[in-house]
């Protein structure tokens, strides 16, 4: 019986089925908890899912590579999801046209703050070069950030983790920071979260209100595009001048 069970385990752990299934189960457990806690920011579903899965993999002695051979099917969807951002962006086209100057200025300032402050703080505290390069694109959505890290010589897989951490931190902190600054306008709140905390912040904003979510999606799409242009250019200039 035991040997039979082991056979099945060996077979299953070699197929992509298991990684895919446990990811979906873990996410739904995490999301259920999050919904039951009335969407409290501290119970972020990405953070809870990652903790559940990392715990499970460690307990069963499964490697990340084995897990990812299944989970990659979910990871892959980040590409088409990025393209799909064109739709919420288009839904806000009228406001985009009316407010494009304010949006653009706030976006560039936010985008620069995100990159420069992250690298500067980590550098001041003694992080090494690969970590710094991997931190630079931390505020943009994973596929874009991994692409940037690769271009500038960071570690794409480390960047992916830092991006997810940033998203969770942003989704958790946003309410407290924005309340302290007495920012009540949902468009402004959403936009700021989208610039700082990409898709995870956007998912959080959509749970707060439709308006906040639309502006967060807008910010995330624009920030992805602008960071993808600016960061590699900045590093190219730096490495050619210095």
């Amino acid at each position, binding site marked *: 019986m035991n040997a039979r069970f082991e056979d099945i385990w060996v077979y299953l752990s070699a197929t992509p089925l298991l990684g895919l299934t446990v990811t979906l189960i873990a996410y739904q457990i995490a999301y259920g908890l999050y919904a039951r806690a009335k969407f409290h920011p501290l119970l972020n579903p990405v953070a809870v899912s990652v903790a559940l899965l990392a715990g499970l993999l460690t307990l069963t002695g499964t490697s990340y590579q084995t*897990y990812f051979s299944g989970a990659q099917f*979910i990871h892959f969807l980040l590409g*088409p999801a990025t393209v799909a951002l064109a*739709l919420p962006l288009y839904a806000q086209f009228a406001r985009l046209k009316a407010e494009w100057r304010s949006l653009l*200025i*706030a976006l560039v300032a936010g985008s620069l703050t995100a990159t420069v402050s992250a690298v500067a703080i980590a550098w001041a505290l003694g992080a090494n070069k690969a970590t710094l390069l991997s931190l630079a694109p931390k505020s943009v959505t994973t596929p874009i950030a991994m692409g940037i890290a690769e271009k500038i010589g960071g570690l794409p*897989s480390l960047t992916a*983790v830092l991006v997810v951490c*940033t998203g969770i931190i942003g989704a958790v902190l946003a309410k407290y920071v924005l309340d302290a600054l007495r920012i009540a306008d949902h468009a402004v709140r959403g936009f700021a979260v989208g610039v700082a905390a990409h898709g995870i912040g956007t998912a959080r904003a959509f749970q707060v209100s439709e308006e906040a979510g639309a502006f967060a999606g807008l910010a995330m799409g624009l920030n992805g595009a602008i960071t993808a242009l600016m960061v590699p250019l900045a590093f190219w200039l730096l490495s050619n001048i210095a």
Partner: protein
Amino acid sequence: MLPAFTLLLIYQTVGEIIAHGLDLPVPGPVIGMLMLFATLVARGSAPEQLRDTANGMLTHLSLLFVPAGVGVMIHVERIRGEALPILVSLILSTALTIAVTALLFAWLRRRRP
């Protein structure tokens, strides 16, 4: 849903071809997104089916970050060694970014109603 999903993949593919073909620093999906946005603007409306499919995907956006997040397992050593700079940097920088963006955007909006 299937035609809409196929359309998203076609835009992504064309985006990748352009990004790699011209050796651009911008990732393919971003080019795909910008092209789809331009198409919608030129067309003057978004097809309902495409809108529903995109909304469906974006509703579960946070799920898509989970596999990358679990990658924290393979970077435990590096993150433990540099926990202080990484954590302080992520927390401060993220809070600062939210504050700068929100304050500036709110101020600009008030000036230009």
